[in-house]
């Protein structure tokens, strides 16, 4: 029991160290991140680290071509409480990028992974790292469940005009 907790501590410590160092990873600062990830790096590095689906538990999200209104409404409530302070619904950047067009720029898996696994992605995902270099504020873990993340995704799709 104690050993486990110690090793968890150690992992946590390594993780924290890594996350501090993360900001120095001056990968493709000027690149249009997601595109470059897809083309250049997929072959060499592990698929997980460079996939345009981001890093996290979501690898295959099936979307209906039409809007799920119930999901989107749920997502609106979560957006108001946990996202809206930093992300406008327009293209305007506040703390983080504006949400307009995000579902066209990013894969649904990437969005849901970033929402639920921001810390790891900010350390390893080139697109996320590029955005951090631009915005300088680490996307916080806002403690969303998997269902919450799915609802927010649907709300973002609605914001991008899906009916």
């Amino acid at each position, binding site marked *: *029991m*104690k050993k486990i*907790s*110690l090793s968890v*501590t*150690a992992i*946590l*410590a390594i993780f*924290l160290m890594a996350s501090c160092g993360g900001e120095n990873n001056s990968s493709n600062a000027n690149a249009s991140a997601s595109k470059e990830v897809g083309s250049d790096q997929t072959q060499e590095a592990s698929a997980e680290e460079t996939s345009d689906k981001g890093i996290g538990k979501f690898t295959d999200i099936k979307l209906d071509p039409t809007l799920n209104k119930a999901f989107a409404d749920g997502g609106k409530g979560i957006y*108001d*409480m*946990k996202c*809206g*302070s*930093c992300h406008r619904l327009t293209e*305007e*950047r*506040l*703390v983080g990028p504006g949400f307009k067009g995000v579902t066209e720029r990013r894969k649904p898996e990437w969005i849901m992974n970033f929402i639920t696994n921001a810390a790891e992605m900010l350390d390893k995902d080139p697109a996320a790292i590029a955005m951090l270099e631009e915005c*300088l*504020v*680490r996307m*916080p*873990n*806002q*403690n969303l469940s998997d269902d919450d993340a799915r609802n927010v995704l649907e709300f973002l799709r609605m914001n991008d005009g899906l009916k």
Partner: protein
Amino acid sequence: MRTKSIQIITVALIMVVTMFGACKDKGAKSGSNKDAASKVYVEPGKYDEFYNFVSGGFSGQMSVYGIPSGRLFRIIPVFSVDPTSGYGYSEETKPMLNTSHGFVPWDDSHHPALSVSEGAHDGRWAFINANNTPRIARIDLKTFRTVDIIEIPNSSGNHSSPFITQNSEYVVAGTRFSYPMDDAASNPDVSIDTYKENFKGTVSFIGIDPKSGNMSLSFQIILPGMNFDLARAGKKASGDWVFFSCYNSEQANTLLEVNASQKDKDFVMAVNWKKCEELVKQGKGTKKKVRYAHNTYSDETHSAKSEILTESIMLDPKEYEGLVYFMPCPKSPHGCDVDPSGKYIVASGKLAAVIPVFSFDKITKAIEAKTFEGDYQGIPVLKYDAVLHGEVKKPGLGPLHTEFDANGFAYTSFFVSSEIVKWNVEKLEVVDRVPTYYSIGHLSVPGGPTTKPWGKYVIAYNKITKDRYLPTGPELTQSAQLYSIEGEKMKLLLDFPTTGEPHYAEAIPADLVAKNSVKIFKIEENKHPYAAKGEAQAKVERKGNEVHVWMTSIRSHFTPDNIEGVKMGDVVYFHVTNLEQDWDVPHGFAVKGANNAELLIMPGETATLKWSPDRVGVFPMYCTDFCSALHQEMQGYVRVSPAGSNVPLSFSTGKVAPAPAK
């Protein structure tokens, strides 16, 4: 890597010891041994093995250290205001310090008691007493926050408190300072020199709800006037009893230094709480009209409420047989400690040359056979020889407190001879002694007061520091010392400074507490009436001369951050909700000229700062806790206009400045 660091520390230690020795000729007195450094070294990023909950004494707080490193993690605000966190200054926490005397911003906290199940630590709550204005507080070990404070009526000087019964049924409270009490009233106006005639003591039993931990005054026992000093609940066979040490059976009201030391023996008092409980259930006891505050804090509303209660049930042991017995005990006993088996009660007569050890088995038999030597003001006094297991002869000078390990050994602190003495409880034989620097008061073995001592260390909490640290003027740091008790001989490992004066402390394995620690408050569950759960709910409203600001904070801005229309004579309430949901991202809030303190708001929490502007102008407000790369940008302004001005109430989060042309 590790070996190297240890070597460096060892070398440094040797250098320090050598230098210290050379300058002050105190080499021998440092008391440490060469391999001590490796035993207390916790590598950066690693955790300590034990939490040590240490009373803050006259700071009124409780501090949390890691053992064996002696690193200070946290000072938990309990009975004193804390401008750092806003405790006692924010509108939400002010009610925690309410009493029947009104708002009391300070106290003197002596004895932590950790919750137990079947006599062993369960890691749920810590309790601690306030000595000056009698109270007991409960700290939730999930949040390390004070969540419950109950005032003790019919009491003054709540010293023998809050020692806990073996399944956390009750914490107790005994009056150190007896005072006038008659049938009609607590504390009538009488002459001080009528002590013998009018002064009474009480011990109180505060019930603990087994699920919520909520405290309530269950019953009180009225007793002859004297000083009730310390206490311990029995365990296992003696689990229905609580034992209190008593001094000043002389009933002196002046120059106690001399006048309370006249008799050869004072008492240890045995109280059968189970019997008292049964009587109260039967509706026995007298209902007394009293006034006391009970304050509770909710993690859902993030707010405290205070209520004044008015009734107490008083039992008089003269009216019921079997509730209370006195046992003679040499010379002004102080500590009164029960060994892990529950068979032995160790009392430390602080002016005596022996440590008397009472046998619970013999106490039971003496009560059955009524082996009394008489009575003290109507309460039976058992015969000393009939209840004595034996005396530890010539153990040292000034015995105060005793803790236990799991191997049948006791560790007693000696203030006058400044040492810890290890002795065998069954055989009453001293097996080891080690000096402390200087004049030890309490001591703590992890699990030492429970049925399941974890052992490994004994920690000394000293009353005098003198030359152990770099001097800091006349007022020096307080200090503790860590000793290994793993071998036959105790070994000094570490000195570490403490805050406030450390009295008692308890240490508990980190595993029992750390796993339950709350990381954030869920914003969805925030039920604060002024919470803004998202920027869409941020607003400013006027109610007469009160201006309420529903404000949000998130890295790195407040909403709203520009407020106009406040006027002289207004009272502004900033209700700040921290929208973050990530661990270790508090935001602070301060506004210029505030006559109280800052707020430090945890993720998902709402806290309120009251601000009464005293002049016209524009006043900045800002985040005080470095939260992000743009922390220095986390600021705003409030405009205050003259009374009667027609500036309308308005607020905004500002427009984002257009990006400069490329």
